């Protein structure tokens, strides 16, 4: 493997001092294999949303890294996440995308598992196993930790990982923008229709870094902006808030989470954004007023694309969507996209948003197609022997982030770069790859929870 050895990930392949990152981390098969162990087996990963499994017995087959997992609700309505693999010979015990089941039965030899994971059915248990098989020991493999954060379900295989909220750190503020209601009530989101899934021939980190906050590639979407696919029918989807707000890059150091964020001026509501649909526009006007009443100054925050390390993207404003970038080998990513609405939104609003969301995002979305083309060709052009010798440049805006950002009385913690004048920075990507390198080097969570030392010192 090229560039392996004493130089290490941080000082070699990921050199943030020089603003350079080796192409090897995107195309090298050994590094990819190491990612599965060091990142996807240890990080918190997004699995789904509780609105996808409302009743006992409901399940949704999801993915954690390369692993197929079952998100399900047992008879007592408790939520579980299990490895989708029979304990006898490994066959998938569930081969549907979603549904309702009393048991998950392996079609190979017939071992059967309850929705609580227990092994309940073993063919010829009495005759072939002489009633001696310890069924309690051979249930489905369950994740080490599961968190239900405002309806979104997250899990990790690592029992030593910190709690999910500690893992998020200050990024809860931005995940809340995704999951709380448009009118400021807590945890109002539900998944709209199904989940879109498609394959892109690129490494999973291409979409992950793009959604970390790449504002530099907007030229790629110029044709979409010219076509005016936004919900008001003209210009960019976010032109209203962009033109009146401070536009920021916000990074949570030590966590690897980052986002674009708009901060409205004091006393200012977001500009109207659904001018082609008066009923929808009126609904959102009402919601924005309610949000300001409930949340006060916090309602000045308007969400934009962001990324929770390692592979979950957020977009809380519009289209309101979350995405997962599931690794399927170093050269392929399976993209999943969930769309959200407030569960008690009028049907007409949901229908309008459904049409707009899929026009914008997903495999047939005009904007996402632009992105896919970039990732596809960038990856392919980085695989060759010569190409691998030359690193990518991540120097944009180095050394310009501040840690005490405030705008008209509203504080924004984290490493922040105000993009309003400079347009773009690569601080989010540097934050993402700094964390990536830490995961690739750290032995365990005692080394990965880098913030605990500084919090201890502050307490002393």
């Amino acid at each position, binding site marked *: 493997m090229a560039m392996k050895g004493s130089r290490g990930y941080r000082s070699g392949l990921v050199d943030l001092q020089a603003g350079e990152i080796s192409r090897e981390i995107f195309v090298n098969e050994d590094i990819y294999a190491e990612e599965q162990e060091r990142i996807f087996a240890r990080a918190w990963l997004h699995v789904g949303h509780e609105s996808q499994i409302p009743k006992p017995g409901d399940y949704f087959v999801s993915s954690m890294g390369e692993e197929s997992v079952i998100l399900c609700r047992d008879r007592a309505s408790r939520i579980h996440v299990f490895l989708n693999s029979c304990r006898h010979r490994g066959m998938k015990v569930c081969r549907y995308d979603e549904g309702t089941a009393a*048991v998950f*039965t392996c*079609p190979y030899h017939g071992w059967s598992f309850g929705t609580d994971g227990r092994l*309940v059915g073993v063919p010829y248990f009495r005759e072939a196993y002489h009633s001696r098989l310890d069924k309690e020991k051979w249930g489905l493999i369950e994740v080490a930790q599961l968190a239900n954060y405002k309806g979104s379900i997250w899990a990790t295989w690592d029992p030593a990982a910190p709690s999910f909220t500690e893992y998020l750190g200050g990024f809860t503020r931005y995940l809340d923008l995704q999951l709380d209601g448009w009118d400021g009530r807590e945890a109002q989101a539900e998944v709209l229709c199904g989940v879109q899934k498609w394959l892109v021939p690129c490494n999973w980190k291409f979409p992950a870094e793009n959604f970390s906050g790449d504002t530099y590639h907007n030229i790629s979407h110029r044709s979409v902006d010219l076509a005016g696919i936004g919900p008001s029918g003209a210009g960019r989807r976010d032109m209203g808030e962009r033109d009146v707000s401070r536009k920021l890059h916000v990074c949570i150091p030590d966590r690897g989470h980052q986002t674009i964020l708009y901060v409205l001026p004091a006393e200012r509501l977001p500009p109207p954004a659904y001018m082609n649909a008066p009923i929808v526009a009126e609904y959102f006007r009402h919601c924005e007023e309610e949000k300001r009443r409930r949340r006060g100054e916090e309602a000045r925050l308007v969400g934009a694309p962001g990324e929770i390390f390692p592979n979950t993207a957020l977009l809380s404003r519009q289209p309101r969507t979350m995405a997962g970038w599931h690794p399927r080998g170093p050269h392929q990513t399976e993209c999943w996209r969930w769309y959200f609405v407030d569960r008690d939104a009028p049907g007409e609003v949901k229908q309008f948003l459904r049409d707009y969301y899929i026009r914008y995002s997903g495999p047939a979305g005009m904007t996402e197609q632009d992105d896919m083309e970039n990732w596809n060709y960038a990856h392919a052009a980085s695989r060759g022997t010569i190409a691998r010798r030359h690193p990518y440049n991540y120097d944009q805006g180095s050394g310009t982030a501040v840690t005490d950002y405030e705008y008209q009385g509203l504080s924004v913690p984290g490493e922040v770069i105000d993009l309003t004048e400079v347009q773009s920075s690569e601080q989010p990507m540097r934050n993402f790859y700094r964390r990536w390198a830490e995961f690739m080097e750290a032995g365990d969570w005692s080394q990965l929870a880098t913030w605990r030392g500084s919090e201890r010192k502050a307490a002393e």
Partner: protein
Amino acid sequence: MTGPINVRELAPGTSIVLVDGSRAEIVDNPGDGVWLFARYLSSPRDPTLIGQEGMIFAQDVAALGEPTTT
């Protein structure tokens, strides 16, 4: 000789005969073609099973209805 029984089509309330001669009544069918939930009506092998519910493996279902006497 009859062919294998398609257990996916068996509705709750159906009476079945097992290969060990037990009789049972289906209480639920998960529809996976592998298992049935049934209550034992009789069991020559283990009379304590009578009245209990258990999971019946499809391969153990010998016939429908009353056991054939020979």
